[in-house]
């Protein structure tokens, strides 16, 4: 029987696509330095627009290539002694010699531009199948619009996944915007496959919290009254969570599938482990109404930014408390079902890579069934 270990620091799979950056962050003006899954990368684009991810350490003396320069259509030049590499990381010239050393290269990592993000695969390149990129079509689908930001979360990526898989925390962390007591009073249903987990919760005939009341009034000016509210959390391995959220006028059939009398958003989250204790948390809020309103796009982005600032503060505090209490373990509650399925999937991915679940294994970890 498979057991899930509630490790406080979960290691991350390497054979996976992670978002390294928003597509607009990677260009030819400056080389972006970013660590993805423990691997420092230099990110840039070739003249014809292809995104490139090279190890951010020169073959010669490991100077960071991200501090170098782009030369020619696709080469990058080391800032220290000027060795140049092409987009595949092969050395194209060396200082003071007429040949190039046949061993000279820096690793280059598979890259895919998709859903407004630059995805990178830092594991075994032979396994880098673009079809494994999680579905985030709402990022680019013409039926949706929205915008987002990046949080640099000072915590293990698993804590962010936990945060998103269980939204009962909204009642306490986000009490002034989206929190309400019905969140923890209502039932939720958890289901899973080998690579996905879904947690669904409906709250019937309730008062809309401030954030949702505003959204309803954007779509239905002057709206008053009660709503049916939903949260359907979709996790896709290893670390993408797209949350279907919204409210509709109470009793107009949203639970049965008619959302026409409501507002629907998708909170698109994808978490990239940086180190064992830090993560890049990319998010966007997509909506499917008033598509042409830049005002609403910006208001929603800023509103969610405020809400997520509350999460960020809690995650930082939680990681600090974990580190300050090395002899205390995690316990689990019924509300953790989604997060625990996520762990189980991640542990299986780590096992398949021949790796332990925890970056710093310790004796006495709490085991649950």
């Amino acid at each position: 029987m498979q057991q899930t270990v509630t490790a406080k620091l979960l290691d991350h799979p390497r054979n996976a696509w992670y978002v390294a950056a928003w597509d607009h962050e990677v260009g030819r003006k400056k080389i972006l330095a970013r660590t993805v899954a423990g691997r420092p990368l230099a990110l840039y684009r070739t003249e014809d627009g292809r995104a490139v991810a090279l190890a951010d350490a020169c073959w010669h003396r490991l100077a960071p290539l991200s501090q170098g320069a782009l030369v020619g259509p696709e080469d990058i030049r080391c800032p220290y002694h000027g060795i140049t590499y092409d987009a595949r990381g092969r050395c194209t010239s060396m200082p003071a010699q007429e040949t190039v050393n046949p061993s000279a290269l820096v690793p280059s990592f598979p890259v895919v531009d998709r859903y407004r993000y630059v995805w990178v695969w830092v594991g075994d390149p032979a396994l880098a199948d673009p079809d494994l990129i999680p579905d985030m079509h709402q990022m680019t689908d013409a039926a949706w619009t929205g915008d987002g930001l990046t949080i640099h979360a000072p915590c293990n990526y698993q804590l962010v996944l936990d945060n998103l898989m269980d939204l009962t925390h909204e009642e306490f962390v986000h009490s002034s915007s989206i929190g309400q007591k019905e969140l923890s009073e209502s039932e939720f249903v958890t289901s899973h496959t080998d690579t996905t987990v879904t947690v669904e919760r409906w709250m019937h005939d309730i008062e809309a919290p401030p954030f949702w009341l505003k959204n309803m009034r954007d779509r239905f000016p002057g709206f008053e009254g009660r709503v049916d509210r939903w949260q359907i959390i979709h996790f896709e391995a290893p670390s993408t969570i797209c949350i279907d959220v919204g409210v509709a006028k109470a009793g107009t059939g949203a639970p049965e599938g008619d959302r026409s009398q409501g507002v629907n958003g998708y909170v698109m989250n994808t978490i990239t482990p940086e180190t064992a204790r830090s993560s890049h948390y990319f998010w966007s809020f997509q909506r499917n109404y008033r598509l042409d309103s830049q005002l609403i796009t910006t208001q929603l982005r800023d509103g969610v930014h405020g809400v997520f600032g509350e999460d960020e503060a809690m995650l930082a505090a939680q990681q600090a408390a974990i580190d300050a209490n090395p002899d205390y373990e995690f316990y689990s509650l019924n509300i953790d079902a989604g997060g625990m399925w996520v762990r189980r999937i991640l542990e299986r991915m780590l096992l398949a890579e021949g790796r332990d679940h925890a970056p710093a294994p310790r004796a006495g970890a709490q085991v649950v069934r």
Partner: protein
Amino acid sequence: MAVSRSEAWQGGIVAASRALTPEIRRIEIDVDQPVAVTPGAHVDVRLSIAGERDRRSYSIVDATDGGRRIALSVYTSPVSRGGAAVMNALAPGDRLELTQPLNDFPLRPGADRYVLIAGGVGITAMVGMAAGLQARGADYRLLYAGRSRPLMAYVEDLREAHGERLRLHVRDEGTSLSIPDLVDSIAPGTEVYVCGPIRLMDAVRREWMSRRRPIADLRMETFGNSGWFDAQEFTVRIPATGLEARVRPDQSMLEALEAAGADMLWDCRKGECGLCEVRIVGLDGDIDHRDVFYSERQKDARSKMCCCVSRVVGSAGRGAVVDIVTT
């Protein structure tokens, strides 16, 4: 990772050793700390040669059981350097010290097409590469050149595994590899990997450069153990200090100089980095440049050599002598 050079040493036990050809022996080793083996990887083996501890690099042909059992192929010519003789004498049950797999010659994904060129025992490095490309469904060709079929290892296995993608070039059968024709036939966007004798690598590189093909598309693995001429004994002298050393056929000039007490600088010891460079101030004989560091122009100038792999040879039985200045 591809460019990791961190060496971890481990023990191993010889599990099997058999001759594949009169010159090539396959040695299988069970290692203590198995790790996954990537195409192009080699191990360094610690050997005791003529009483001195030394190390030699051998490509990994294949690995089974998650890297627990690795197979190497060792080449011996009548005048092989000492390492091959020691390796050839290994018998099942013998213990030896070796590194975990190292990879200076990784197979990089992402090229449109690949051409693998193996000469002689260079096929050792290519067996795993070809298998890796096949596993990825890549577009590749494998060219294997040798003197005569009985001297070429793994031909049947490769034929079975790669079918039409394998092309043999056998000198005795009149199907020698024409390198100009080969380079002409390689489409842009193709990445070329070469492993074999220096004359093969030199010829490929010369044709490649003369056509102004991108140097980054040409990858070479050189263990610096073959030359244009058979290795012979010669004398090296450093007039400035009066040092004089005999260089045996089974040792390199760098080893002989070190043994004679010269303070030498080096890094790769396989003719790639140029750190072991010596300046030639007098020469009775010819230089057998076995490195890939110098350009053709620099080799023709006969003024410097990489003493880790390159040698001097005399004509008609006369012992060669080289006078040098070290850095």
